[in-house]
């Protein structure tokens, strides 16, 4: 059923396509495949969200222009899972978005969210609605862990797919890197009280202890509080070799600022929550200089692979900014959905939600990060974790993650 609102949106989509010069007559006959695009567009992580959303929109626009799935047309609808009152992502808003997606009959698949806290709230609802979602950035392992299947996918089938690996690799691999490569002997650990941050810090702590690193303490930051000097002064007194922070930008930005003043000489590291334009801009140089961070994917952005070079150019021409690694994993997620729809259509079956979900489980998709395929839980089969360090490069914009984060290599797997 077309509600008045969706008619309007579809009409707007056609109008936009017409403006871009797409042929008119064919559009009218195409069936609409809606793709939900959930991300944290408001608050402390908004810039990263925009970089991801750009890639998603670009992938589907290209698919439409190239008639990738004959007879169908993709329409991307954005959902914001952040609220102004939270100042960052809000799991409750994620749940509302998931319900909206599930109840929209034209919605066949979704991309997002960036935040594991939101993913935990969305996953059970999407499972009940049989709507597959591919996350380009959320890394908390619980969501896809079969141990928690009853909680996060009550219908049993994998529903939460990822084009990044999880913190079960990201945290421990970084612990390996810090002990083996950076020769860290003692460490203090902080988290930001979110699902992602706590899980990440836990995984890191366990592996750091296993490697014989002396964990001097663990504390939790309130992302809404402004002052972290108490925790940092305590860390200064304990004088560890390094500080590890599990969490995202809202607390991370302030932490980087204040840590620069209070513990300038301590090695500082975080996970993929600390890789973003928001951190670069909010904390700024010189405070962020020298921070280590990881990405739960191979490092693709800026590689010399002609496919990636070409993608980067298209992206930059269109949006006047450079894609980061999670723009690429988002683009890859879109490619996986497009490829599934294409294959289903080629087999002569109608492209539906459940058909796409089933197809994602078995398909192998050539993407920018190589061949992507998912295991029975929805996790990507590749487990690469890349390490970066922030080093100022004045030739590029200072909030451009693609150039201010210098790739240091792959974190050793245990």
């Amino acid at each position, binding site marked *: 059923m077309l509600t008045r609102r969706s008619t309007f949106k579809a009409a707007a989509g056609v109008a936009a396509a017409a403006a871009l010069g797409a042929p008119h007559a064919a559009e009218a006959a195409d069936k609409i495949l809606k793709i939900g695009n959930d991300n944290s567009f408001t608050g402390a992580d908004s810039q990263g969200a925009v970089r991801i959303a750009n890639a998603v929109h670009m992938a589907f626009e290209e698919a439409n222009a190239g008639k990738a799935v004959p007879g169908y047309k993709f329409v991307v609808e954005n959902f914001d899972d952040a609220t102004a009152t939270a100042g960052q992502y809000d799991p409750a808003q994620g749940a509302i978005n998931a319900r909206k997606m599930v109840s929209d009959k034209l919605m066949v698949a979704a991309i997002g969210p960036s935040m594991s806290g939101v993913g935990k709230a969305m996953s059970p609802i999407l499972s009940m609605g049989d709507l597959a979602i591919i996350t380009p950035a959320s890394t908390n392992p619980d969501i896809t862990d079969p141990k928690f299947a009853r909680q996060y996918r009550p219908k049993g089938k994998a529903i939460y797919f990822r084009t990044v690996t999880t913190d079960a690799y990201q945290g421990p691999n970084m612990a390996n890197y810090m002990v083996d490569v950076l020769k860290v002997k003692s460490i203090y650990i902080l988290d930001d009280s979110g699902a992602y941050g706590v899980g990440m810090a836990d995984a890191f702590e366990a592996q750091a202890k296993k490697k014989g690193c002396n964990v001097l303490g663990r504390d939790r930051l309130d992302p*809404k509080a*402004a002052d972290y000097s*108490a925790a940092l002064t*305590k860390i200064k007194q304990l004088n560890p070799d390094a500080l590890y922070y599990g969490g995202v930008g809202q607390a991370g930005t302030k932490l980087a600022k204040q840590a620069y003043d*209070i513990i300038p000489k301590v090695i500082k590291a975080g996970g993929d929550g600390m890789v973003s334009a928001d951190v670069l801009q909010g*904390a700024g140089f*010189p405070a962020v200089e020298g921070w280590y961070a990881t990405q739960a994917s191979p490092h693709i952005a800026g590689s010399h692979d002609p496919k990636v070079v070409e993608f980067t150019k298209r992206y930059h021409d269109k949006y006047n900014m450079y894609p980061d690694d999670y723009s690429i994993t988002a683009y890859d997620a879109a490619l996986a959905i497009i490829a599934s729809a294409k294959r289903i259509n080629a087999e002569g079956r109608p492209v539906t939600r459940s058909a796409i979900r089933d197809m994602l489980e078995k398909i192998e998709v050539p993407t920018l990060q190589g061949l992507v395929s998912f295991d029975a839980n929805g996790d990507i089969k590749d487990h690469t974790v890349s390490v970066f360090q922030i080093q100022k490069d004045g030739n590029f914009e200072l909030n451009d993650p693609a150039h201010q984060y210098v790739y240091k290599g792959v974190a050793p797997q245990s």
Partner: protein
Amino acid sequence: MTAYDLALQQLINGFSLGSMYALLALGFTLVYGILELINFSHFNVFMVGSFVAFYVLEGFGVVGQNTIMTGLPLVGVLLAALAVTMLVTGGIGVGIERLLLRPLRAVKGPAAMILTIGVSYVLFNIVILGAGADSKNFPNPLPPIVFTFENAVLRMREILIWVISLLLMGGLTYFVGYTKLGKAMRATAQDPEAARMMGIDVDRVIMMAFFLGSALAGAGGMIFGLYYNYTSFIIGFSAGLRAFTAAVLGGIGNVPGAMLGGLLIGLIEAYSGAFIATAWTDVIIFSLLVLVLVFRPNGLLGRMAPNKS
């Protein structure tokens, strides 16, 4: 760093934090003292203040962490930014009172308080839409001069915060205690009816209370930015809540009480974070508040509010 250094460092941190809370708490107390109204828009007037200061400083060409100034230009820029910020936020406070709260003054019940919550959200969303939802890299023009005592560090920005807050609080104390308008304010707080009969322009006094409270919140917002080199649309809530707690702790309506409450909350926050854990800070602050209110329901220095006749 020994435990002694840690304690000293946290004293410095706690005082800076406390001065900021105190400035903010004064606004709650001034308005409550006269109108018996908890003004929740105060949270975000503070936040708007930090954005005004942010843009004024950028207007002077002070951007990010790279512009360092010294001597007279520094003082001039800071004073100009402070003056503009306080005038703008003071104006917002007066506007809220004149346009929105005055028509409601005759209405009994929580209508006015709910209205201030609404105004708070309006300010909040104006800033999100106007300035963006990302955190801002607040300029820091102060020279990186550092004094060390043992291993504790005292920076220029802390000294600046203390000086500004002390001057403002001293000025307010003088104003309330010794000027004609200040006396009118105290008279109105004591009994608005009688004050009106004595020929005091109560409307003007109320407007003044809003102006002063909001201007102090603006100053607090600017100090916040200079201290953390950061601002964002979200900063009003946690700082505002702590400051409100400070006002209640000291005895709401009581000007010295708000200052004392602010300093105490700042110190508690600093010490509990360092010696227990940051995760427990809120629990400790609010448990202490509950304890104080159980044994001294009117706060530490006693509550001052209009006599109901």
